[in-house]
């Protein structure tokens, strides 16, 4: 029987002071839980999400077959993070567009949607919000906090802001901060959104519009950076789009005829399969993702930099962490490169913390952290096995 997921909501009336100085007076968090909290309340695992994901990390919704959570290959009964042994919590961060309070909600100060007025939220703010949900759930200390990419930054931040509340941190395909190139990609995506005429300074809701063009381009850029050159070549190469394929349809690969047809000699039609793929991904994304949320979340990525308050010294920054760590990176991930994970490992070593580090030689770029790879899932599974043994 598949794992059934149910979204829950928790309302908070105690204001949340944000790093930017603003205050979220009143807010709600969407979350899901899987498995059972044990009598000692010691088996809770918090999963933090990345850019375009949500609290729906595992399982399916009743009656909706294809509604698997975004990390369903990692989390569930008998999976690496085994919900038969752990009480797993997926949580949606404030500022998101998937259920927690975000830019589409009503701003109590104006009675209108927040839009661009939603305060800038940081990784640290998210961790504080998550901690409050744990308080409500009666969980003092997590067996583990787990996240990939931006989610890994939250997991790392947990060990610094609430060291006594985390026994283990599993940080996958992440970094101690973004490089200039990485911020640059985010900026291009943001400019695409902000300069879309339908954006209206972030208050497009009142015009009944969505800056879809901007969102599409933002997604296309993101997508390119999540893949590797090799995997893109393998998947698409120079294949041309089959003649029969409709505009906006999911691209099909492996059509030998497509390779052989004549060029259209057009500058604007879709010629190559990779173009078709990117447009398809962009279209899909623009249908469900909120433009203001995209701006907020990429900004949270840019701002994260725990070493900043320590003159750039990451070792000093990580000194408060007492958790045990597992870090995982992927060899072809150039957006969150192995070298960045190694910086975290080095800082932990210098603080004499328990840390293991697996560098998986996978071809899939940053996307690898969401995919099935026996070595990756194996090492995370083995680590959680150890955590489970500590519970017994």
């Amino acid at each position, binding site marked *: 029987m598949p794992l059934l997921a149910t979204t829950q909501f928790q309302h908070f009336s105690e204001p949340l002071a944000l790093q930017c100085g603003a205050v979220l007076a009143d807010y709600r968090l969407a979350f899901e839980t899987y498995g059972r909290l044990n009598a000692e309340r010691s088996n809770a695992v918090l999963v933090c999400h990345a850019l375009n994901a949500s609290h729906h990390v595992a399982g399916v919704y009743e009656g909706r077959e294809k509604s698997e959570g975004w990390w369903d290959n990692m989390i569930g009964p008998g999976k690496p993070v085994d919900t038969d042994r752990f009480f797993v919590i997926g949580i949606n961060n404030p500022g998101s567009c998937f259920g927690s309070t975000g830019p589409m909600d009503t701003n109590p100060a104006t009675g209108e949607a927040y839009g661009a007025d939603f305060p800038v939220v940081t990784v640290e703010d998210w961790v504080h919000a998550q901690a409050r949900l744990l308080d409500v759930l009666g969980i003092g200390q997590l067996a583990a906090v787990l996240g990939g990419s931006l989610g890994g930054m939250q997991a790392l931040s947990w060990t610094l802001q609430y060291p006594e509340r985390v026994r283990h941190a599993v940080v996958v395909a992440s970094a101690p901060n973004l490089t200039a190139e990485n911020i640059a990609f985010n900026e291009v995506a943001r400019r695409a959104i902000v300069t879309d005429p339908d954006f209206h300074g972030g208050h497009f809701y009142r015009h009944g519009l969505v800056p879809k063009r901007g969102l599409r381009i933002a997604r296309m850029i993101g997508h390119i950076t999540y893949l590797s050159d090799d995997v893109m070549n393998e998947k698409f190469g120079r294949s041309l789009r089959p003649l029969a394929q409709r505009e906006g349809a999911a691209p099909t690969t492996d059509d030998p005829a497509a390779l052989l047809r004549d060029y259209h000699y057009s500058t604007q039609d879709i010629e190559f399969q990779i173009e078709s793929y990117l447009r398809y991904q962009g279209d899909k994304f623009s249908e469900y993702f909120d433009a203001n949320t995209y701006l907020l979340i990429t900004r949270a990525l840019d701002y994260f930099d725990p070493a900043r308050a320590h003159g750039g010294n990451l070792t000093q920054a990580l000194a408060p962490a007492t958790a045990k760590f*597992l870090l995982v990176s992927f060899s072809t991930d150039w957006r969150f490169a192995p070298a960045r994970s*190694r910086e975290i*490992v*080095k800082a932990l*070593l*210098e603080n*004499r913390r*328990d*840390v*293991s*580090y*697996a*560098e*998986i*030689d996978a071809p899939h770029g940053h996307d690898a952290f969401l995919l099935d790879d026996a*070595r990756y899932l*194996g*090492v995370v599974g*083995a*680590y959680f*096995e*150890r955590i489970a043994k500590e519970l017994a």
Partner: protein
Amino acid sequence: MTEQATMQALAALVPEGSRVLDLGCGDGAMLDYLQRARRCSGYGVEIDDANVLACVRRGVNAIQLNLDEGLAIFEDNSFDVVLQIDTLPHLRNAEVMLRETARVGRTGIVAFPNFAHWPNRLSVLRGRMPVTRRLPYQWYDTPNIRVGTYKDFEVLAHKNRLRILDAFGMQEGQVVRWLPNARAGTAVFHFERAA
């Protein structure tokens, strides 16, 4: 089991409670033993996925790195003991790694197959590279790309200003102190940096 005996003989060189770095730690058995029997702590470095998995499974800290890319991730003098057990012959830059061992550790323990063990000499005298239990590979597919002898290591250690604290051979799980260069399949060196 002779491997167990060799492990224990090497472990005996590691002071109780030491902070240990095990370069090429394999499945983590040595570190696991040192943690349990001698209250040590530390990390293993491994390149192989299956070995990293085995370490994580048994609760040994493993860092997946290619030793040929150096030990930049480790600070000077950050370990009491650095182990290199059957690792040196696999390294392209064995001398650099020896220096790195002396940089990050206060002491080092190196063990490797001794090419001057008499059955190996006999084989070479007969005109063939040795294939033994200790060196089970054919010359064309061996991972041991830096084969050397007990005596060779003494010379290399001297060249790199390492002071040898103890050195002996191991054969069939027994310590060999008389003519180890000829009588032992494994050479063991315990050293520190000369001041």
